[in-house]
């Protein structure tokens, strides 16, 4: 029992470190936790340049087959690379969905001609991909989506609205799940396509979040013409294709939630003008200990998952567990820290000495953490059903033609909408 790499893993990690040391600078881990910023043209340029460097050095497409420019390595290598890269100040996030989810879906379902065309530009940072699954009325119930794809000769015409699409505003291509048969039960009438995001009829609008960030988008599809050749998988087999795509998400074992335990520790142990730090109080010590235990538990649980991965086994529910625990912890910690600042906790300005910490921002981001990527309720259902083997919820929409399923958007408190 140990936390060490296997000899082969250690060799790989060493080569990763050598590459990173030569090409990037270490991140100051105590500084500036995760910010909620927008990607602009300059940042996009930096991200492309970094991706190009990785590709040139053989650290892109780690799990992809060599035939398409990948490294033909395993998931544990991908994780090792991510672990190491996380310690450096390099652009993150722009290519994750394309390289981690979209192209792997193409690798499973597209023909060689398309792979020839699309894999290299993606790998070298020249083209960016996004993923369009969720809709305003199909979130937790993804298979309830209503974006329509209608056959028109050799093409399909897509109409509908997608939402929560990361990176849509700067993407070149995207995979999109649409309904091709409204008469079939809901999982049976879906088909997967990839589309050109610059095609006529594609309109991208940012979503303004409570936290102030806008890293998600709505994508409106109005009569978008897509050649049948851009279909991925069989007609009506789109759900199975989507599951392939989503399975790849489970690898994101290193997903980091900030501020986390180190940040609250730093906050609670700083003393202000000769006063004892908050951690001198037993109430604070006990509360902190709860979060510490949860935080270390998630970390060790991930390490048990990595042990499996390292042995070539499938990852388990590590990601669901981490998300449930971290989202709750984030909300608790940010509220606790802000509460401790008293009225000073109201202030949001980063330049104000009373507000020089990340917890106010986290307070506004925390509710999203319980929802994005699967609500805590959905994640608990997944654990109950897939891990514990408890019965599935009774489904009113099972085996019913989709068009007969009761649907309702919900009376929404959203600006300008009439309900």
């Amino acid at each position, binding site marked *: 029992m140990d936390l060490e790499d296997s000899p082969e893993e250690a060799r790989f990690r060493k080569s990763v470190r050598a590459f990173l040391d030569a090409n990037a600078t270490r991140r100051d881990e105590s500084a500036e936790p995760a910010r909620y910023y927008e990607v602009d043209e300059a940042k996009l340029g930096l991200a492309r340049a970094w991706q190009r460097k990785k590709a040139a050095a053989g650290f892109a497409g780690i799990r992809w087959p060599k035939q398409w420019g990948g490294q033909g390595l395993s998931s544990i290598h991908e994780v090792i690379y991510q672990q190491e890269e996380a310690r450096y100040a390099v652009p993150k996030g722009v290519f994750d969905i394309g390289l981690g989810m979209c192209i792997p879906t193409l690798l499973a379902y597209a023909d060689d001609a398309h792979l020839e065309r699309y894999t290299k530009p993606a790998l070298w940072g020249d083209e960016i991909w996004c993923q369009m699954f969720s809709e305003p009325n199909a979130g937790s*119930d993804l298979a309830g989506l209503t974006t329509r794809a209608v056959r028109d000769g050799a093409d399909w015409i897509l109409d509908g609205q997608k939402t929560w699409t990361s990176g849509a505003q700067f993407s070149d291509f995207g995979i999109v799940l649409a309904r091709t048969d409204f008469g079939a039960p809901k999982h049976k009438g879906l088909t997967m396509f990839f589309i050109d995001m610059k095609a006529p009829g594609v309109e991208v609008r940012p979503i303004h*979040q409570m936290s102030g960030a806008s890293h998600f988008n709505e994508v409106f599809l109005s009569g978008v013409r897509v050649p049948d050749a851009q279909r991925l998988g069989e007609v009506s087999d789109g759900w199975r294709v989507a599951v392939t795509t989503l399975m790849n998400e489970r690898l994101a074992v290193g997903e980091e939630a900030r501020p986390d335990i180190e940040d609250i520790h730093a906050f609670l142990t700083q003393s202000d003008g000769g006063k004892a730090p908050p951690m001198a109080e037993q109430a604070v010590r006990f509360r902190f200990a709860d979060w510490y235990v949860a935080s270390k538990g998630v970390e060790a649980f991930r390490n048990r998952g990595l042990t499996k991965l390292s042995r070539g086994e499938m990852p388990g529910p590590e990601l669901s567990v981490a998300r449930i625990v971290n989202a709750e912890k984030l909300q608790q910690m940010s509220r606790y820290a802000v509460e401790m600042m008293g009225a*000073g906790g109201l202030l949001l300005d980063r330049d104000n000495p009373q507000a020089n910490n990340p917890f106010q921002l986290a307070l*506004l981001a925390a509710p999203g953490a319980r*929802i994005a990527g699967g609500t*805590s309720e959905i994640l608990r259902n997944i654990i109950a059903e897939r891990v514990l083997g408890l019965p599935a919820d009774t489904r009113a*929409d099972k085996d019913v033609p989709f068009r007969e399923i009761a649907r309702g958007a919900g*009376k929404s408190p*959203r600006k300008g909408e009439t309900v």
Partner: protein
Amino acid sequence: MNLEFSEEARAIGDQARRFLEKRDCRERARAALSGEAEPDVELWREMVAFGWIGSFIPEEYGGNGAGYEALCVIAEEIGRSLAPVPFASNILAGEIILRSGTQEQKSYWLPKIASGEMIGTLALHEAPGRISADAITLRYENGRLTGRKCPVPDGAQADFAVVVARDPDGSIVPVLAFFDETVTRTRQPTIDDSRAQAELHFDGTPGERLGSGGSGAWAELVAALDRAAVILAFEEVGGAQACLDLAVEYAKTRHAFGRPIGANQAIKHKLANVYVAVELARSNAMMGALGLLSEQGDLAVAAATARVSAIQAFIMASSESIQTHGGIGFTWEADTNLFYRRANALALGLGTESYWKERLVSGLEQRHLA
């Protein structure tokens, strides 16, 4: 047993609700949040004109004498509507003047609050941390104030404040001061910009000591906070109830997996828990109101109980309302976003949960000693 507001008070509540609904306060709050508007002084003046705010001010000082029951139900409606008005600031300033002011001061300042002629506030906070006398460093010397206060609710719009200061002897002294040109005021971005907060620098600002002096100034301030806490608890209960109502309505109408999401126990039990929290908070607030009405000295425990319960309920209701709404709930344009901000801002603005828990327990200790 009659733990319910009078018919008169409830009628005022209904009137306030109808008025605030017509004024579309959530839109106004959203506009204020986006920096498109300052706190809605015009709406405030309309509300004042109904006599609502003057209800806790005796008729001899320009109030309408409707009393605290009326003020409580109005606070609840303000909470429900999210009206972006300088409510807490005026209540705080009014309460402390009413309790600690000289006859002359009450006659001069209270009518200005009751009529809406002026907006008053309380300038208390300086450094981050729990409210305490030790944290007060702003100087009051030779009739002039020098120092900094931040955050001050509605500080950028108010006309005057009760400024909590320290005199050369080191005693705490509340000072009445107009915001003249010696006061530099900067609006501060906060987690809820629909209720403005400002940083104030006083640079030799003339001011008059509130009340007849003496060593009990801090205790009087704390007692005024107790009274204001009950009012604020009702504002929070109103907000929490609105969050619950939004979530229930959404859960009944939003479908997933072929049925309303409200048919899922995960949602049902979540909202049942919110209901329990809101009803306990409302009940505790009513006991606080009873304490206000009875004018007994021992309000601290009831006020603290009401306030802690209300903070917990509003924070929970606003969080779970977002969760019930799912993705749409944490967008900028969702009302749930506005309520979540307001819940957290109200929880920080007038003594935090920790402050009130400490007040609760020490209040019980004093009772046992007595």
